[in-house]
């Protein structure tokens, strides 16, 4: 008779060696980060004001991640698929709106009515991105709904390339610089006015989004579809329409994020969607994908960590050019979150292992 291999019974949980190794690696990483932070803080190169500035920059960048992440998270929540092309949706709005901004600038309208111009740009960008998002859904995703998960993921990658190089073909590969908006130049206390504008923009968009989802019939339909598509259909919800609406809303927000991005970073080009896209996805995962407040929090947290992390974690070790490693930090966070807390910071545990 075979004797069962020795094991430890831990009551509800089983730990095997592979997991042990993973936890050890995680622990080592954490220790490195903590030690580095302590070393940096003890060295005291940075003033409190500078730490504050890091946070401010991080929030400005993170707010944009957050807006893009909302699109990812909504689509994931409703369709359980990663819309890999979402970064390009963001890019399409920003790229196209450049021409509107340029026109407004040349005609002097921008100077005369900066606020109207800004709103026009936001709306225009939102509409362009929305159109792109909806088209992508119709052409690349809808016919494949229900296929194995790999399939829409690949079409998403395809759509991402297609959009990037379409815009490159249409508008060229050069970098375009948005005109400066006079009222947003300069500082207000410690903040750049553009940073404030971005932050306010994100807050308003978020508020509108929450109102939309909580208070409207379409929002209710989206929430229902996200929870149980079939049951929603049985309530008379047009599932296809709810999904398109999701893409449209996510796209619109990405478009707004595009203009806000341009306010802060000025330059736009066809490739600009790629990195923010992946970062925003990271943010969505960080906050718990499918979870709206999570995406917002995740974006801000990621922005701040990216901004503050290299200095805080690595300065103490005297690592050269630590800011080159900020994306390493971002991706490491992504991987760690997926390993240790796949439901994200705010996500609820959906019952550990798959129920049979």
């Amino acid at each position, binding site marked *: 008779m075979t004797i069962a291999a020795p094991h430890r019974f831990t009551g509800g949980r089983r730990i*095997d060696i*592979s997991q042990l190794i993973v936890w050890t690696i995680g622990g080592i990483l954490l220790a490195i980060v903590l030690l580095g932070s302590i070393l940096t803080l003890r060295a005291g190169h940075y003033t409190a004001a500078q730490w504050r500035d890091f946070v401010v920059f991080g929030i400005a960048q993170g707010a944009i991640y957050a807006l893009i992440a909302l699109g990812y998270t909504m689509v994931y929540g409703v369709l*359980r*698929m*990663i819309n890999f092309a979402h970064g390009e949706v963001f890019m399409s709005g920003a790229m196209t709106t450049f021409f509107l901004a340029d026109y407004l600038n040349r005609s002097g309208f921008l100077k005369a009515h900066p606020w109207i111009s800004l709103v026009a740009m936001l709306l225009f960008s939102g509409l362009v991105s929305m159109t792109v998002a909806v088209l992508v859904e119709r*052409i*690349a995703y809808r*016919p*494949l*709904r*229900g*296929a*194995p*998960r*790999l*399939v*829409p*993921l*690949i*079409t998403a*990658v*395809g*759509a*991402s*390339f*297609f959009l*990037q*190089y*379409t815009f*490159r*073909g*249409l*508008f*060229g590969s050069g970098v375009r610089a948005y005109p400066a908006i006079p009222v947003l130049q300069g500082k207000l206390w410690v903040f750049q006015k553009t940073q404030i504008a971005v932050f306010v923009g994100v807050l308003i968009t978020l508020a509108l989004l929450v109102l939309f989802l909580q208070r409207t019939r379409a929002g209710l339909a989206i929430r229902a579809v996200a929870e*149980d*598509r*079939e049951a*929603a*259909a049985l309530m008379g919800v047009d*599932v*296809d329409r709810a999904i398109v609406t999701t893409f449209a809303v996510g796209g619109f927000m990405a478009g707004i994020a595009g203009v806000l991005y341009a306010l802060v970073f000025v330059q736009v080009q066809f490739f600009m969607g790629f990195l923010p896209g*992946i970062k925003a996805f*990271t943010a969505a995962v960080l906050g718990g994908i499918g979870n709206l407040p999570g995406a917002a929090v995740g974006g801000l947290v990621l922005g701040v960590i990216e901004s503050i992390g290299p200095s805080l974690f690595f300065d103490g070790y005297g*690592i*050269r*050019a*630590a800011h*080159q*490693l900020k*994306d*390493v930090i971002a*991706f*490491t966070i*992504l*991987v760690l979150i*997926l*390993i240790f807390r*796949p439901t994200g910071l705010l996500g609820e545990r959906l019952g550990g292992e*798959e129920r*049979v």
Partner: protein
Amino acid sequence: MIVHAARRAIFIGLVAGIAGWHLSLVGLIPAFAQRRLVGDALTFSYALLVALLALAAYATGRRYPGAVQRIPWGILSALLSSLMLFLLALLVTHLNLRQILLNATPELARVLTFGGGASGAGLVRLLLIGLLAGLFAGGLSALPRPWGRVIVSAALMTLLLGLLRDVLGPLLPQVVTSFLYGTAGLSLAGALVTFLLAAVLFTLRWSLRAKAVTARATAAVPATLRQPVTQALLLLILASVPLWAGLFLSNVADFVGFYILMGLGLNLVLGFAGLLDLGYVAFFAVGAYTMAVLTSPEVGQRFTLDFWIALPIAIVTTVLAGLLVGLPVLRMRGDYLAIATLGFGEIVRLLVLSDWLKPYLGGAQGVTRIGRPSIASWRIDSPQEFYLLVLLSCLFAWFLSVRLRDSRLGRSWFAIREDEHVAQAMGINRVTAKLSAFAIGASFGGLSGALFASLVGSVVPASFSLLVSINVVAVLVLGGMGSLPGVVVGALALVGLPELLREFQEYRLLVYGIVLIAMMLFRPAGLLPERIHRRELEEAVEEAREIAPAEIATGRG
């Protein structure tokens, strides 16, 4: 009924028209207006436009049973698309859009109207060509079963031959070249001969296949390919490539080989074990960088080992990397696995790029002066010589793939792919099965990377971007996941062809995106599907189309 048919024709016509606008405005049409394929008249752009119109006509007519309906509705679509193209020509001529749209030039208008310009003459030309394209497409589809296909295939073959003039010209005997080719594309006579020859060939193939269908319809590889004699012959031809192909083609063949190796490696992970790894480039990078660090005198410890000593070390290192990536992602599935591996791939690239590790890995500048292999006094230096090494590696990887597939381990991978839970209940250790897939799959990538580094002589971080991973996935997707011949076909089509058609480079990734989407929509199982996978994917996609959408959401049945 008529209303419905008209709506359909108009819709398809408009869609084709929009596609035409897209191709024009992204620059594909104007860029190749001078690229002659056949004679002096048929340029690449014209071929593209005609194909677009014909496709519109075909797509419209397809639904109807006979020529009587196919042709007129098809023509309606084609004419509508022609009108759309003319509209664009008008817009481009009369509005100055160049400030915004790079390619909205008067030149575009000329190309779009087949040289007629945005005037009455142009309109007449366009409509005429639309009419002909519609007639042609309708007529073709109305022909009995094989003929339409044969003609289209032969025509495409001819165009391809014209396109490849610069590559093929120098390879063929002088007499043939000067007969076939004119100053730019095929000569008229050459085109005619090519077309006829291709038509004969395709007819033959079709009739052969018709016979074979009853025998072995499901095999991915034609039965003839299974004969040892044929296999040996094939190998001979493959091995002789450097003798006739020349520097350029050998170089291309080497790069195709690198992707075949990676494809075979990822196939173990994704095709066999069903684990989507979007960071496969990490292994390619680890292999390449290990080779670089061990053989180059520039970085780190300046080992300057011999290639043959460095190669196994590189492979072992990659296997370790495979384990390192595999361990943490053991419990992940689907999207999460894909994204986590993508993260790993990027982390590797960012680390080799960093100033921090520059003394050891060369930083953004990479590492040059990487060692080349030599056997006794023979130094393997040129792409031709390297080709043999690459070929051998590919054959070895293929061989290994087959042997693993037919083994107990291979079966446990399939089991994991099909149903991880049940696989465990069948006594399969999930950890070992997955880790072995990651490790062995990684080793192929490492081998590929090591060879790549040695051939090119330098490695730089930018060569290891996400694009490589996506390329490899696309190779598998195009060829058919789990299918070994599919990997070869995929690599040839996605790596080889673009290298040969270098002028199209700027549009390569655009076309790439279109190919990925189109494949998934129309042929999700790939060009040479493995028997099992084909069923799975087509079934699922079919179901997705047939059943009401809500059905699929929950996967209930």
